[in-house]
């Protein structure tokens, strides 16, 4: 049994300590907005925030986390889904299938929190998530729109 703090709530999670955080979030906590894409840290579909950092939740185990670490998933990013990134995404119609977009949004939100006015180079460095539908140019435009909001 591990204690995790997810979206402001401390939860007892009945998962073996070597369970990846991704699967504890999806299967024990029941929040399926965080997606499985590769399981090996390549795609970023599983991105969540841990103490404000964008982290690939497939590549960190439940047992390595402490109860006071603040985990935020896409469901907890904004109570009204009105984070500037979410608003920009809607404005520019960023998602296609949308499967990668939870991770994209979480990565972009973490970037903006650190660098409110990111340059193209900052975006290139922070946004290494995979999108098979190919929304990259709208993701970039969305980050810039949110930065200037």
């Amino acid at each position, binding site marked *: 049994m591990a204690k995790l703090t997810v979206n402001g709530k401390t939860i007892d999670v009945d*998962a*073996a300590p070597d*369970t*990846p955080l991704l*699967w504890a979030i*999806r*299967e*024990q906590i*029941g*929040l*399926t*907005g*965080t*997606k*499985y*894409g*590769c*399981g*090996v840290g*390549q*795609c970023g*579909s599983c991105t969540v925030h841990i103490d404000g950092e964008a982290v690939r939740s497939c590549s960190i185990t439940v047992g390595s986390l402490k109860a006071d670490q603040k985990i935020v*998933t*896409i*469901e907890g*990013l904004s109570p009204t*889904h009105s984070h500037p990134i*979410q608003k920009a*995404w*809607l404005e520019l*119609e960023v*998602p*296609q*299938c*949308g*499967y*990668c*977009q*939870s991770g994209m*949004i979480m990565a972009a939100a973490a970037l903006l929190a650190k660098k409110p006015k990111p340059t193209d180079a900052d*975006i*290139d*460095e922070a*946004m*290494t*998530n*995979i*999108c*098979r*539908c*190919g*929304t*990259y*140019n*709208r*993701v*970039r435009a969305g980050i810039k729109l949110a930065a200037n909001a």
Partner: protein
Amino acid sequence: MTHALDVSRRTFLKSSAVAAGGFTLGFSVPFGEAAAQGVLPPEVNAWVVVKPDDTVIVRIARSEMGQGTLTGLAQLVAEELEADWSKVTWEYPTPGQNVARNRVWKNFSTGGSRGIRESHQYVREGGAAARMMLVQAAANEWGVPAADCKAARSTITHTASGRSTTYGKVAAAAAKLEPPKEVKLKDAKDWAIAGKPLKRLDTVDKLSGKQVYGADLKLPGMLNAAIKDCPVFGGKVASFDAAKIEKMPGVRKVVKVGESALAVVADTWWQAKTALDALPIVWDEGPHAKVSSETIAAMLKEGLDAEQAYIGNKAGDAKAAIASAAKKVEATYSYPYQNHACMEPMNATALWTAEKCEVWCPTQNGEAAFAATVEASGHPAPKCEVYKLHLGGGFGRRGMTDYVRQAVAIAKQMPGTPVKLLWSREEDMLHGRYHPITMAKMTGALDAQGNLVGLHMRISGQSILASVNPQALQQGRDPVTFQGLNPSGPEASFGYTIPNLLIDHAMRNPHVPAGFWRGVNLNHNAIYVECFMDELAQAAGVDPLEFRRRLMKSHPKHLAVLEAAAKGIGWGTPAPSGIHRGLCQTMGFGSYVAAGAEVSVDAKGAIKIHRIVAATNPGHVVNPDQVAAQVEGSFVYGLSAMLYQECTVKNGRIVEENFDTYPPLRMDEMPKVESILMPSGDFWGGGGEPTIAVAAPAVLNAIFAATGKRVRSLPLKNADLRRA
């Protein structure tokens, strides 16, 4: 309008409606029975349901997988319906309903960029018929001729008296009327909803994690399954030792799935996968265990000069023209296996009982998934149902039903328990339906003036139809092989007139299963033709655009997009220092496409793609913003394939198991894309795929301009572009 369903079907629908009604899911509850009882809002016709609060529900038969087809189809229906767009929403009818109602929604298949181009006529007619019935219902109520009433924004007005009512108020009465025998559709130039860059109907839930994909489905009492199919195609399970993992946490059952696969069913998917990875399995690898990329290449190479070949396009005598050419140019190209690698791995959830079988799945072809469910479940069609969920990417892969059959086969061994089967990324990579592998030997004949007088294009390699649907072969010949190379026709015709032409195909089918991979055969055909056109132009000493123009006089639509892309990229004007340009064009999926690329290559051989200009004539554009999104996305898909992606074969199996060895292009490599949409209004073409085919050749031609090197074997990561 009422729809007779047979009694057993009604009972079943009712029970499944009750079952599904308890879950909060993104799909619609079967509506036939409930609507008949007045529980659901009236169905004006199969395509249009109007609620008392004026919400218009448009039924969408095709699958949404990111390509925007659902919004586009809703726009077309709403246009003819004269609906208030702000109150338009949508739902999927189920494949079982389609069968029960005599295919009232026609084809559910969503592939070949056909979602809109194949159904625009009848969905618009559905919208128009519903509008006429709503107007008629209002006219009946007022006792006036329908011709004296007008509909706009979901409101009906009697012109003379100024009386008005809304769709929601008359929908129940309209639903009882006979549908009109004849409907007249609007001219596209009068469109107010269609043709406009309206917002998608399915974006909001994708921003908050709320959108339920197949992989996210939760049903009460549901268990989870992970699966391993024999990694060597054609192999089988020889033996396995279930006892070794049965006590692992959460494990409920180890089941055999057909002859070739094993699945572990557990409380959670992570437990199932962990146990499956620990399961000792001995495979009988079957007859293909020694096949490798090298043996496949040798097989294809032999086909390049083989006697027998199927003819795709022929004019004059190409071989004679080549024999007597002033200058002969020859080059051999090749294109690898590639996996679709949808962002969401394959999955399906099934519930099997002795009485019925229900499946929830992301599918590009609801009817095929339904047929697979019927077959795998052992139940007759009226006792089966499939509920479509949003797809985390499709790209052709989800037109197949292998994962649906597996889910049903597993659920059948767990009667009464819903089981969600989710593939790992590794399973997804090892059990794709791969982009076919081909080579092409291109031989061109130039006359003394540098005109192309003869061309022989010999394709050697895999047929998709032979793998997916062998019944569709025409006396052994696969017509789909010649995509973009056909003599004429509205689907995918060759854009050049060459007096002596032979395009033929030596079919060589390795054991790796081929499938429809977004862009299909157009992808490699366009590379072969368009890169070789550049080689010919160079040999003739003629500018590549000018060289093509000479051959395109009878192909004005092909030429128009090429000219537009050339102009957009600045062809013929000086490029910024270090930047080089390439051009290409093709036709496929009923649309004309061309691209120009600007590329630089540094001394170490690293490429940067700076800018792409794409020109598209899809005939009609229903949502320009979504077509632009498809064009942008197509470059990501096409350039990923060109730069990095290949599935190699060793010991009969695919080597690349995840994105570390099968990387797509990422944001830092993504060029700017300018999209020129130039619909000519006289036909309906597709938008989701054709552009992929022009991504690679435009860039490869620019790379030649930059380096003097021809890359003829893909992916590009294997080529050395360092300056000599």
